[in-house]
């Protein structure tokens, strides 16, 4: 076990992980803080959503979990650099498409160029024009 950085849309966390070739395994206790998914008696859970234990009995048996299995189970994509010991877990295409179809504008909290946090939710009750531009 050695330090490994896991990046999600919510956080950058360092956990202990076992690297074996291209496989990265994280202990069950570290999974929640790093990925937002926690192993419970019901299964693999995040908030109100649980993936039943019965669907993945071999993965949810208590042993450290392979991040690739986690990504598969939760419909996420996994980008990995085992040499640099960094992984990124991101929403998969189905999740993104499903969210898109609700026609709800996803909330976000991002800093301004002056480092002040701004959320879409701050502007509830007003019309918003979101304009993306770039220096490139």
């Amino acid at each position, binding site marked *: 076990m050695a330090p490994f950085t896991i990046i999600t849309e919510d956080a950058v966390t360092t956990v202990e992980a076992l690297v074996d070739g291209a496989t990265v395994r994280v202990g069950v206790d570290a999974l929640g803080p790093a990925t937002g998914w926690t192993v419970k008696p019901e299964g693999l859970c995040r908030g109100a959503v649980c993936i039943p234990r019965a669907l993945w009995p071999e993965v949810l048996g208590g042993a450290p979990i392979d991040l690739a299995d986690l990504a598969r189970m939760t419909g996420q994509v996994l980008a990995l650099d085992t040499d640099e010991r960094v992984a990124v877990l991101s929403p998969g295409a189905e999740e993104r498409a499903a969210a898109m179809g609700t026609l709800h504008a996803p909330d976000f909290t*991002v800093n301004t160029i002056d480092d002040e946090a701004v959320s879409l939710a701050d502007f509830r009750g007003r019309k918003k024009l979101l304009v993306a531009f770039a220096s490139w």
Partner: protein
Amino acid sequence: MAVDEDPGAVRPWVDEAQATFPVLLDRDHVITERYSMVNVPTVVWIDEDDHLVRPNDVAFGDDQFIAFTGIESQPHHEALRRWVLDGELPLADEDAVRQRQMPPTPDEQLGRAEYRLALHLRREGRDAAAEGHFVRAGELAPMDFTIRRASMPLRGLDPFGEPFFELYGEWEAAGKPYYPTSRDEQGTAD
């Protein structure tokens, strides 16, 4: 919002425009990913209840690049005013909104994850490792300019020079894929 890494690269534009609205710096491409933005400029209209009224589209502030883009700025400005002042919706119904959305492919989502990985490595000073992931991201999402072009200044490449011309050539050859645009409707409902 600026799809940029460095606030210093963005600030001159904001200062010149004397912006009175918040200018976000989407360094981690959180909004870019969540809204499936593939290039700039992207405009999104969101109503009081955070519903998408007009999904991702391309619109310009003025006509300085019209010879290059072929897109007039005026119709979007006028449609925007009609919505803000009169409540006139730009699209007839929710199906019309959905038809104009472009859900990402699994490879495009993985490309965004690879890009995020590259950003982290670069910020940690691990440039050689970052380069591999910038390249991989571009292979997975070759028509996503928030990956291909946004990475150029981070990789020591000129986003207004030869690497951009090559990318543009690829994009042209692919049929100029971009947002399904409603500009032909000039902002009127179906």
